[in-house]
């Protein structure tokens, strides 16, 4: 069996796209609205459903992470000792006695029958009683057995080292140690200590590979004591291991089920050791289980696998132990599996615009679970009826039966607070689901509900549905404000949302809910001003300069809302964001460099270094620093001049070409239309991962409105060629053709992006980037402008051009 698992694991790696990156959480990918903590047996917590780990709350028995609430470890063994010593010894001192003390220290006490000379932690008078001394003798023996029982490094498998392999026991060693145990057992009167000695002997035999002896010790030493406490089950687990080694899987399975049921701290180990792989063994194992609860535990051991059909095991458990917490456990696992399947957190680009998301197969399964639970609730077999009603109400919620769900949830009157909280959550989610439109009453109800302190998951769920409904009823502002501040619009300026937001903010009276929506995300002191800027920029981005100007004229010239962000990491790797004033503040501080150019564009240079060309200085209306209104006015003016003839028109075309090139994805000002304060954090625009030109319909605006590509590199290309065409000055012509050739390269990249770019060029092969077939303007430069001074500058500063001349491809 193990070999299958390994093989599957190694092959499955090939196809597992969701393999957890360090930041990815499958558990956080869906809305879990049903609380698994409602399960009545808290020792089952590790068996709650989780997709991120092997066991809920931590990585479980292999001890990878031990920092969660689960591992505020209760040491049940120490608690047994505490009981044994009539609560006279503290947990701390017991820890020393059991795990840290040296055999010599204990022998000293025993030989002197006095605590004289013993360390403070061992100075307990109860150790000198008869049972105390028997305990000390036992502990000396247990410490003798320890080297044979500690798991080896080698078998733990996840270590590269082989330093401390568990001591392998020889037969004579085993015989000798076992003999000491036998004598001690015979000489000990206290039954609890006898049981502990017997446990050591069973374990010693099991770990030594003497399986017959392990089973014999259990039968002759453990069973006759008729003590069914924790240590008995520890011993039973060891016997199960021996049976397993003898391939008696059915017997081992029944014993593991018993240990699983009766111990709070050995459940994970039982699950890890349990292995039944055929029906005959399973049936035999069920028959060997002594109680209904143990049988139910066996069904859990089989059905715990995330892939299982929980309903099937629920039916099995219900038939024999309807009030078992195992039934609640399997029910919760089944429900969460369906939540995982249907309450996936919608993403901006989600194709599916219906929610809950569930295919026909999933829906059919849900019907079956509902039918089973309805019958269970109707029957009088279960005592914890409130739990099951809350469960059923939640199933109806998943099934989209909102009224039914709410009715049942509202009727629950439990004295368990957690059940009441769950019922209220289910009821409210059902109410939200039932809303066809979000009207004033609905908003009021939501507002009231949120004045209570509610679960974050529920809140996110409600806002997702709410935002979706607002989109359906075309209340775009409200839909947008459920998840965003204005920056959610920056990469894709959606005019419907902007218009709706302007109306929304202009409204003089706003309901409490609307005010809360604003408060949730918007911190701006001039929201309307920012919206006017966004609207102006929407038109600017479309190159509708006249409309842009209308809106920019409404903007306060002092408006400033963009800051440069820097990420700072402290010694612990904790990230914090530092905000600094940037050059471009969202509306103003735009340098005239936006109309300039140079042979090479270096994004990390300052403006003076990045731009050397001063052609724009021919136009007095271009100020050295502008706001968007002044920039648009300058562009309008330039466009008028560009229509003319002669060198002035050529210069206007050239400067326009620079503006459109600089604001393209490959330009120094590529951040301009995306509301980034600098050009640094925009890799998504110039790498080859394509951002869409048109967005798909969204479920809601959670995560913003997406990114729309604004790369129109043909525009500057055309302006530069017009400049060449209209210019008389050869230097200007050369400049214009060279800048056009940069656009030519970018057009080539664009083309590559639309095909398989691997065929276009690669990091090993730059040739296509300077071959004459792809760079006809290089040829033009060489043929017509080789006598210009600018041509020589290009030759020294542009490598592609150098290669073009050198290799003549």
């Amino acid at each position, binding site marked *: *069996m*193990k*070999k*299958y698992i*390994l*093989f*599957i*694991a*190694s*092959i*499955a*790696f*090939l*196809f597992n796209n969701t*393999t*957890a*990156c*360090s930041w990815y959480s499958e558990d956080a990918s869906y809305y879990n609205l049903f609380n698994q903590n409602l399960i009545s047996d808290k020792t089952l917590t590790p068996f709650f459903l989780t997709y991120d780990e092997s066991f809920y709350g931590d990585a479980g028995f292999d001890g*990878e*992470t031990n920092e969660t609430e689960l591992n505020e470890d209760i040491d049940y063994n120490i608690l047994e000792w505490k009981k044994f010593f009539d609560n006279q010894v503290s947990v701390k001192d017991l820890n020393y006695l059991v795990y840290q003390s040296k055999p010599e220290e204990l022998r000293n006490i025993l030989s002197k029958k006095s605590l004289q000379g013993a360390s403070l932690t061992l100075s307990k008078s109860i150790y000198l009683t008869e049972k105390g001394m028997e305990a000390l003798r036992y502990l000396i023996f247990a410490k003798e057995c320890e080297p044979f029982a500690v798991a080896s490094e080698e078998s733990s*498998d*996840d*270590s*590269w080292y*082989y330093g401390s392999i568990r001591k392998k026991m020889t037969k004579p060693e085993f015989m000798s140690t076992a003999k000491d145990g036998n004598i001690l057992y015979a000489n000990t009167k206290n039954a609890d200590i006898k049981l502990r000695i017997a446990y050591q002997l069973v374990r010693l035999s099991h770990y030594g590979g003497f399986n017959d002896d392990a089973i014999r010790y259990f039968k002759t030493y453990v069973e006759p004591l008729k003590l069914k406490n924790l240590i008995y089950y520890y011993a039973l687990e060891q016997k199960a291991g021996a049976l397993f080694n003898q391939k008696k899987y059915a017997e081992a399975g029944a014993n593991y089920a018993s240990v699983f049921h009766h111990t709070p701290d050995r459940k994970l180990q039982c699950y890890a050791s349990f292995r039944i*792989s*055929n*029906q005959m063994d*399973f049936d035999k194992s069920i028959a060997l289980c002594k109680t209904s609860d143990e049988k139910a535990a066996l069904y859990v051991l*089989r059905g715990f*696998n*995330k*892939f*299982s*059909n929980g*309903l*099937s095991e629920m039916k099995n458990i219900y038939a024999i132990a309807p009030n078992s917490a195992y039934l609640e456990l399997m029910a919760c696992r089944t429900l969460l*599996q*369906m939540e*995982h*399947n249907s309450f996936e957190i919608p993403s901006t680009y989600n194709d599916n615009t219906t929610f809950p998301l569930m*295919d026909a*197969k*999933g829906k059919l*399964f849900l019907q079956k679970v509902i039918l089973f639970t309805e019958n269970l609730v109707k029957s009088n077999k279960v005592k914890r009826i409130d739990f099951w009603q809350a469960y059923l109400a939640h199933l109806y919620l998943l099934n989209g039966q909102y009224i039914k769900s709410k009715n049942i949830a509202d009727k629950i009157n439990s004295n368990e607070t957690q059940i009441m909280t769950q019922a209220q959550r289910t009821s409210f989610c059902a109410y939200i689901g039932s809303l066809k439109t979000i009207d004033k009453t609905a908003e009021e109800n939501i507002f009231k509900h949120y004045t209570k302190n509610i679960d974050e998951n529920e809140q996110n769920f409600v806002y997702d549905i709410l935002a979706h409904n607002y989109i359906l009823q075309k209340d775009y502002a409200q839909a947008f404000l459920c998840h965003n501040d204005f920056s959610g619009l920056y990469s894709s300026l959606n005019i419907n949302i902007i218009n709706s937001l302007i109306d929304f903010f202009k409204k003089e009276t706003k309901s409490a809910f609307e005010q809360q929506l604003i408060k949730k995300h918007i911190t701006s002191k001039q929201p309307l001003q920012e919206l006017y800027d966004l609207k102006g920029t929407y038109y600017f981005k479309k190159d509708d300069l006249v409309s842009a100007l209308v809106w920019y004229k409404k903007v306060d010239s002092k408006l400033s809302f963009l800051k440069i962000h820097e990420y700072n990491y402290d010694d612990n790797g904790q990230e914090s964001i530092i905000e600094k004033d940037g050059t471009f503040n969202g509306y103003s501080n735009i340098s005239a460099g936006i109309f300039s150019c140079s042979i090479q564009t270096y994004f990390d240079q300052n403006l003076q270094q990045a731009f050397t060309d001063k052609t724009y200085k021919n136009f007095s209306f271009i100020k050295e620093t502008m706001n968007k209104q002044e920039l648009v006015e300058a562009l309008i003016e330039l466009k008028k001049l560009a229509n003319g003839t002669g060198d002035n028109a050529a210069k206007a075309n050239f400067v326009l070409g620079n503006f459109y090139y600089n604001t393209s994805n490959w330009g120094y000002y590529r951040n301009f239309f995306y509301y980034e304060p600098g050009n640094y954090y925009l890799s998504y625009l110039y790498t080859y991962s394509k951002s869409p030109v048109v967005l798909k319909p969204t479920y809601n605006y959670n995560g913003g409105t997406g990114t729309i590509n604004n790369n129109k590199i043909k525009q500057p290309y055309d302006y530069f060629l017009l400049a060449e065409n209209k210019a008389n000055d050869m230097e200007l012509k050369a400049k214009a053709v060279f800048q056009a050739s940069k656009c030519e390269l970018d057009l080539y990249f664009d083309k590559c992006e639309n095909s398989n770019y*691997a065929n276009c060029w*690669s990091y*090993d*092969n730059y040739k296509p980037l300077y071959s004459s077939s792809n760079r006809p303007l290089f040829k033009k430069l060489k043929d017509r402008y080789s006598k210009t001074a600018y041509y020589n500058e290009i030759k020294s500063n542009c490598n592609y051009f150098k290669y073009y001349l050198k290799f003549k491809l």
Partner: protein
Amino acid sequence: MRKIWVLIFVCLLLNSCQQKKNIAFYFWESNFQISDFEQHYLDSLAVQQLYVRFFDVDIKNGKAVPVGTIQIHEKNKYQQIIPVVFITNETFKVLPQKEVTQLASNIQRKISFLYPNISDKTLQEIQIDCDWTESTKEKYFHFLNELKQQNKTLQISATIRLHQIRDRIQTGIPPIDKGVLMYYATSNPLDFKDKNSILDNAVAQNYIKNIDSYPLKLDVALPIYSWAIVENQVGEKRLINNIRNEDLIDTSLYQKLKPNFYVVKKAHYLKGNYIYEDFTIKTESISAQDLKIAQENIAKKLKNKWEKILYFQLDSSNLVHYSVQQLKTN
């Protein structure tokens, strides 16, 4: 003139009867023990090399650790044993660059610890199996270089997947002595479509259009494994190994929906895995005919540039479905 004709004839003759390929096997189970039945295949096919998966390497808590180390129950006297280590791509995504050298030496040390238990022959080659990608190539290649540096006398080989042949510009060419083309896994089995995801010869052919210019010596691994892709009640999928249509003929347990697709009628154990009512199963396996076509397609492209075929994998439950004759190379 006559001499030239004779020469041409001899060349044609040599070309038409291509050299027979050597045969090797992968051994990918967790317990190393060769059954008599498996030994019979090894003997009959004159197998000289066994590529044995020694352990996997994966990331746990940010550290690269060995996982699923092989349990060696016997020493092999006949074949050259080549240790194979499967490293998850995630390992190279997460592992800091500065720990790559340490990983290479950890792997080397663990192999030298295990190897004497499996063979008395001198260790000649180590093979690394990793589905590296463009984002991990730098670290992975650095790792391979380190491994070579630390084992200069050994041949270092690595598996090459089909997409790495096709997209070589992005994924790069690993710095190794020799590669093994994994001529399988042509699509994602979890897609649950009609196509055979283990090997669809038409799809595979598309991947190797330009293989003749791949700048590494290559051997070829062919699949003889089978599996079932099982879909549960909420559409999640799992793989169960060594399942073929013949395993699903009991009509009280399975209803056939269409070729290779079944629905489970009653919960039961299928090769040790408990599967429930309403689960859907798709079986995938590779026929001897598929293997033959695959070999022909590869031969057309690689001509005589490859030396051996490695079957994945040596296991009686796979072998029983192929005769020795069918596994002999063309």
